């Protein structure tokens, strides 16, 4: 068991580039996923047309590992000439775009459930009160229900983001050199099993804790009204 600080230092550029590449996939996924999830969650909560389809969508992408989804999009779809021989190929031939699509599908499925859960906890009485006060449905939703849902769902959202950071390790399977793949490549080159993996682990650990710190700050700001005031 040994850790080679020199190797660690020298491999940092490679590992950090890979981290940047990971984040360049992850951040758009998180943003897209959130937007899609709000839209889908509303369909589910209000039981609009397509609610059944959304339910099936959520169950599928929560039940199937993200690796399978990525393989299906990157390797599986090109099996069909419809994808191979048309303009679609410009999209599906790019590993980056396939990665975006695959992870967004999975992430949005989990996010839909999280947003749905958050919306469900908002007391119905509040919605009724705001309707009586004359706010439109859209206003009630965006200015009252959604902000409250976000507060309740904060912990679940944090956990989901942490899980997404870790599932980016699957990207190596579709030729995107993410942080894990980069660490492996250094191992392949140097046969040092400890240093590159431990360095990559340290970088993941930093990412994780940045997210945790960010959420704990957000939580404190958003929920400062809940801290019981003690007057003497």
């Amino acid at each position, binding site marked *: *068991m040994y850790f080679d600080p020199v190797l660690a230092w020298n491999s940092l550029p490679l590992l950090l580039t890979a981290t940047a590449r990971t984040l360049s996939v992850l951040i758009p996924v998180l943003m897209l996923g959130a937007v899609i999830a709000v839209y889908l969650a509303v369909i589910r909560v209000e039981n609009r047309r397509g609610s059944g389809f959304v339910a099936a969508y959520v*169950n*599928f992408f*929560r*039940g*199937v*590992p*993200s*690796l*399978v*989804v990525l*393989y*299906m999009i990157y*390797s*599986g*779809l*090109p*099996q*069909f000439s419809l994808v191979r021989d048309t303009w679609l190929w410009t999209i599906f031939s790019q590993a980056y775009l396939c990665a975006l699509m695959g992870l967004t599908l999975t992430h949005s499925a989990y996010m839909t459930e999280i947003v749905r859960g958050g919306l469900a906890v908002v007391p119905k009485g509040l919605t009724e009160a705001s309707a009586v006060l004359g706010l439109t449905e859209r206003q009630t939703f965006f200015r009252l229900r959604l902000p409250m849902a976000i507060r309740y769902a904060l912990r679940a959202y944090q956990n989901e983001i*942490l899980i997404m*950071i*870790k*599932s*980016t*390790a*699957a990207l*190596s*399977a579709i030729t995107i050199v993410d942080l*894990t793949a980069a*660490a*492996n490549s250094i*191992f392949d080159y140097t046969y040092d*099993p*400890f240093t590159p*993996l*431990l360095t*990559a*682990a340290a970088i*993941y*650990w930093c990412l*994780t*804790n940045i997210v945790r710190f960010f959420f704990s700050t957000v939580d404190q700001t958003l929920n400062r009204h809940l801290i019981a005031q003690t007057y003497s």
Partner: protein
Amino acid sequence: MQILGFTQQMLTGAMVSLQVAVCAFIMALTIGAVAAVLTLRQKTVFGAFWIVYASVFTGVPSLLVAFFFYYAGADIIASVTRLSGAEKHVDLTPFIAAILALGMVYGAYIADLLRAAIRNVPKGQFEAAAVLQVKKRFFVPLIIVPQVIRIALPALTNMWIVVLKDTALISLIGLKEIMAYAKLASGVTKEPFVFYLIASLFFLLMTSLTYYVSKNMQAWSDRGAAVYGKD
């Protein structure tokens, strides 16, 4: 016809996935249960150690941990056995590395979960058993544990599904489970979509089966549990 033959292979792979998942989950449950009990009281030595352990193993992808055990496992065992004199060289198979990685990572999550469940058992249950003079070694397994299970069951079920799906990712260390065979079959038949679809169906089937079984388990463990709103 070819598809059928490969499907059979994939079934063997599926069995391997299940074996890894089951062994890893049992290991995670054990680690989690022990850690939860030992960290109930704040500020112990083990508590400090566990904070570090949990921070590390929940902050890092399980795939990375699996690679670590797969590549470095032999070295670790050699170093440890060197201390006791006889240095042994044991190569960790992907199977073992996968189980170790998943067990240690999800043990950290399960500990958190179980500790919260234990804390949520109403204090009155402990008090009632104490004033009835029933010794701890009787009332803990008979009164407390059933209630901890009831509280923790939904979260534990979710954890099982997460572990099962994570075995797919761990296939990337070279474990010959369902994903590996799907990839193999795709390469040969040039029909990857079919095989990945079959793999999806496997996972969906397992998820549905899990929910079905857990619903029954929940019904049994919920017997007598409080009906909300009625007091």
